[in-house]
């Protein structure tokens, strides 16, 4: 079934990307129908995902606004994580996975063969379910991205990037005096903020979060949620979450997935107060999931 919000088809010409992904001017961006004043950052049309012979995602079309938080909710195995991983082509790392359909960021096709996933992933940061800092120092964790992407010329610039990223992730105060400590020595919540800092350090436009709080205690979760709310000012944040409360707290728009299909997508208040589909209603009222 098609999703209810048929999106305006993507925009910038033929969707071809040049060798190198340099951000193009956003002047031609169309504004998102849900939010009105926010431009569309990510537009997907007819995305199907297959793992080996099994289809995991069916024909998902959906537009995501910039500078806001979009939450994907739905029962386990409904394909929300799979869909998230389509946006930075993480599915490429799974041999048997096959993605068809169109995913565009700022109108540029992500699945195009000419797009280097490496460059793409620098623009689309990702935070995983379990905090996964590298077993290196806090400093190296954050500086690794800028280093491989050549974002800094010298030590001072690196230091500056690391500090900025850690500040933005709200971790600077806690770790400023022990940047040499291994990242794995931090607490779970701190680790997750470190991972967010690591993602911010390469200056992404979109940040994908795959259940970022599922491994954390309530206090750490609250801290992360606050952070997400702050980051919303500058980034397009897409998060998968299991917790409907969390989706309600931090997101502006919410998409509900079920059995590999997008069931309903709309402003968060509307989804939670006035769902149009009975399955959505059943899910938020706790009949299944």
């Amino acid at each position: 079934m098609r999703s209810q919000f048929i999106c305006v088809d993507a925009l910038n010409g033929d969707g071809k990307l040049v060798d190198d992904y340099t951000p193009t001017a956003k002047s031609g961006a169309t504004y998102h129908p849900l939010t009105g004043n926010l431009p569309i950052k990510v537009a997907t049309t007819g995305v199907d995902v297959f793992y080996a012979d099994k289809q995991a995602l069916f024909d998902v079309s959906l537009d995501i606004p910039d500078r806001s938080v979009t939450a994907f909710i739905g029962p386990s195995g409904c394909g929300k994580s799979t869909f998230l991983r389509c946006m930075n082509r993480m599915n490429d790392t799974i041999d048997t996975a096959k993605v068809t359909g169109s995913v565009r960021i700022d109108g540029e096709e992500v699945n195009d063969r000419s797009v280097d996933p490496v460059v793409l992933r620098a623009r689309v940061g990702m935070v995983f379910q379990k905090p996964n800092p590298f077993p290196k120092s806090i400093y190296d964790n954050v500086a690794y991205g800028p280093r491989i992407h050549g974002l800094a010329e010298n030590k001072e610039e690196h230091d500056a990037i690391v500090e900025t990223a850690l500040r933005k992730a709200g971790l600077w105060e806690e770790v400023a005096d022990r940047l040499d400590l291994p990242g794995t020595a931090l607490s779970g919540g701190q680790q997750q903020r470190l991972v967010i800092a690591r993602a911010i350090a390469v200056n992404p436009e979109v940040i994908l979060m795959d259940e970022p709080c599922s491994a954390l205690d309530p206090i750490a979760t609250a801290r992360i949620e606050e952070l997400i709310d702050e980051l919303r000012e500058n980034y397009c944040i897409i998060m998968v979450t299991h917790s409907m409360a969390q989706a309600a707290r931090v997101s502006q728009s919410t998409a509900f997935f079920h059995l590999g299909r997008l069931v309903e997508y709309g402003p968060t208040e509307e989804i939670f107060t006035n769902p149009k589909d009975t399955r959505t209603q059943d899910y938020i009222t706790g009949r299944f999931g």
Partner: protein
Amino acid sequence: MHISLLTALALLVLTAIGFYIGRQRAYGAGRGRAASLHSLPNYYGYYIALWVGAPAFLLLAVYGVIGAGLVNMLVLKDLERAGAPLVAQYEAQLDQDQLYQDLQEQLVQSTAELEAVEREISYIRRENTVQAERYEDLRARLPEVSSQRISLINQIDAREEEIYLGVFQGAPVEGDGFTARAGFEFSHLPPERRQLYISNMRAYAFDEALASRDTPELRAAGALFRPYHQILRYSVAGLALALALAGLVFSRGKIAKRFRARNHVEKALSLLLFATSVIAVLTTLGIVCSLIFESLRFFGAIDWRLHEFLLGLHWSPQVGIRSDQIGQSGAFGAVPLFAGTALITVIAMAVAVPIGLMSAIYLSEYASPLMRSWAKPILEVLAGIPTVVYGFFALLTVGPFLRDVALMLGYENAATQSALSAGLVMGVMIIPFVSSLSDDVINAVPQTLRDGSYAMGATKSETVRAVVLPAALPGIVGAILLAVSRAVGETMIVVMAAGQGANLTINPLESVTTITVQIVALLTGDQEFDSAKTLSAFALGLVLFMLTLLLNIIALRVVQRYREKYD
């Protein structure tokens, strides 16, 4: 060597320069802003360095592998040409020599006679006709006929040698005389001695100290090497440098802001990684090909009587008298070796399986963590001891001990080298193999099965016997098969402790021989590479390889299927 080293050094310098050029150009293209480039500047450097270094070094490597052979080939061509008149002269003299021709004729007759006798013998044997007297008579005549023939062959050889020496000494020495003589000398050498001649020639060309003989012919022939060597060496060096420069120019032109240098470098790296994984496959291929190829030559040498090799009861390859003798040269019935291998393997398994399995059961089901942490490494020490040490132990401690015990018990023919001592010691060697494999298998049995048994009031040993072992049985069988394949292929223990006599016996106190022992016996010491005796080692190797391969495949299948069951 010298010039090659110099070239290699020059290439290294060029590669380094290429790297810097790449980096500099990348900075230039990005106007000093690394972030605006597609890849990090270093990758542009690597890209150029690859283009500069890889093709040129590859060329050098190829030259290193085939260079010497190529020069040899060219020189041998020259030698052949130089020696051709003398060879012609020699052949003409052979043709004209009455004595030689007579001898050749006699040889033909004698060969025919021998063949006739052998044919009749094999006819009688095959048809099982009752002609005992005739058979005995033929059997008695066989050595006579064959020795007559051998003496003829020796006479022919002697006559050939005489004429050869006449021609050789009569040849002129002025001008290119020595080269011609060398060519003639080389053409007259039997194949197995040619390699030595070539290395002596090379010694005079490059380093006299390595020469084992000093004749004017060798010196003259050695002189032939230098020009070829020089030309090839310089042209390869020049070509390598040219390749490097061409690579530099080509790759330098590609550097641009949007150029995906990292992708190209990574592609090259992943090709290299792929190549390393191919080596493992090539090894198998090499084993299979070389074994099959040499075995085919062996079967050719025994006239494709495969059944005689696989089913024959008599093994005495050492008897081969002459390589050009037709028909039989030694007896190649490998059954005694198979039987010996089987006997020793059975003894080894009789030691290793009960001890290995019981220790595995005890360690995984009963032992405290502390005991496990001590006993397992100690058992693993047994696996780490080199097999030659086990061989020494079997030969000097176990063998004499068993012999003394046997003598004490009244068995008089006891020898130090026996199937029993080799088998016992091999069994000890295999214990850790059986125990660690069984340990894995037993640990893979789910705890729920055990719990089910305990819940019904079974004791530990009943649970082990009635639940754990049956559940683990396929895995244990696989482990035992792997251990058998290990025992079949084990070499040093049997070489040192089992003996050489190809006895067809099941008496463990006698000395027996195995496939591996015979391979070692046939291939150590002096050997001419083309004789059936030497080649038979490869046929044995092929049998060994097939046998172990089969055991492994079955074992791995069984174990894998077992794992799947409980995953």
